[in-house]
């Protein structure tokens, strides 16, 4: 196995957080082609139990999604987010930076403290300053952890608003696949 590939494998495998190409370039031998090394790494793990994915601006190893059911037999999964919190998160993702009031306006109902706290606790949202309006309410935005949590490379991986709206309305909400 080529030395650059071994180094890339070691570094990315060991890390819980995505490793950017810049960081990778810093540890690979002089003159390595970072993109080629990443491609080789992705290829080496194709179809395996763990795979290399691009997430939150870097690359990282994750278990293959099809194995989740087996793994959760022994690995404890945290609770899923309740619907209200998920909707608030989606609104913040699309309207960031926005205030809690904006979220409530869009949902047409008050946002419970526990929903906001759940998002904060999971590190999915973070304050992004204050809006210069009466009361100077805090503005919220999504975080790197948000991208990691939902396996997104970047915010632009979210479906466009038009794609969401123009999809045919029905009770089942047919959704277009992931990017």
């Amino acid at each position, binding site marked *: 196995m080529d030395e650059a590939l071994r180094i890339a494998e070691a*570094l990315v*495998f*060991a*890390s*819980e957080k995505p490793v950017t190409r810049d960081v990778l370039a810093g540890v690979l031998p002089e003159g390595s082609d970072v993109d080629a090394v990443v491609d080789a790494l992705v290829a080496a793990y194709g179809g395996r139990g763990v795979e290399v*994915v691009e997430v939150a601006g870097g690359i*990282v*190893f*994750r*278990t*293959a*999604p099809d194995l*989740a059911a087996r*793994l*959760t037999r022994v*690995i404890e*999964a*945290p609770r*899923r*987010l309740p*619907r*209200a919190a*998920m*909707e608030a*998160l*989606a*609104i913040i*993702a*699309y309207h960031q930076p926005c205030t809690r009031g904006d979220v409530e306006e*869009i*949902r*047409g*109902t*008050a946002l419970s403290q526990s929903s906001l706290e759940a998002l904060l606790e999971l590190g999915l949202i973070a304050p992004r300053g204050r809006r210069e309006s009466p009361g100077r309410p805090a503005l919220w935005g999504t975080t790197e952890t948000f991208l*990691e*949590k*939902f*396996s*997104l490379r970047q915010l632009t991986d*979210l*479906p466009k*608003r038009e794609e*969401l*709206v123009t*999809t*045919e*309305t*029905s*009770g089942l*909400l047919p*959704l277009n696949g*992931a990017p």
Partner: protein
Amino acid sequence: MSDSLTLHLEGFDGPLDLLLELARSQKVDVARISILALVDQYLEVIEREQIRLELAADWLVMAAWLAWLKSRLLLPPEEVAGEEEDAEAQLVRLTERLAELEAMRRASLWLSRRPWLGHDVFPRGAPERFSTVDRSGVVADLPALLQAYVGARRRAIARRPYRPKPRRLWTVQEAIARLQALVGKLPSWQVLSRFLPDGGDPVERRAAVAATLIAGLEMAREGLVELRQDAPWGPIEVRGSVDG
């Protein structure tokens, strides 16, 4: 479809949520729903359901507003000339809000169908770190050391009650004893100041000078020593009494 809907207001996150559900039941694009039909359904639900009073306010405000909106929309245009635009604008606004909520609900669903970290995919459980932190060093800067010294001294002084330095004052009795002990061994004239004790600060030295002079005078009076001074302000000399 609406007939088969079993609606429980408490299951809905506010009136807008219910309106969206009702709009969906019309099976058309949210932008093309019939507001009139929507209003009727909404009011019907509100009447049918037993609403807990503390939950009622939002729902009733929405019901009142929708009833008003419906009345404006039903009136012939000329009769509401002044308000027509208002009602139209509010209708557009309601439609937009429903569309936005619908979009966000889809976004939420899209997100929840992504591979979730910790549910569908897992990170390395025992990540390794390639950095070792060396905490063995110490921040050593000289200014801090000096400040610490000055600070410690100042604090200690501030805490200590004022206590005059204890003085070791030479008494006349001590001076006599010292003179007696020494002068007998020195038959020739000696400068009296040689018999002063060693050390002491300026105050203590002056006290010793005075005590030694008095001791010399006292001993001369008793005939134990002789004193002489050749000139005013000159050195005072002493010797053991020739008779003694």
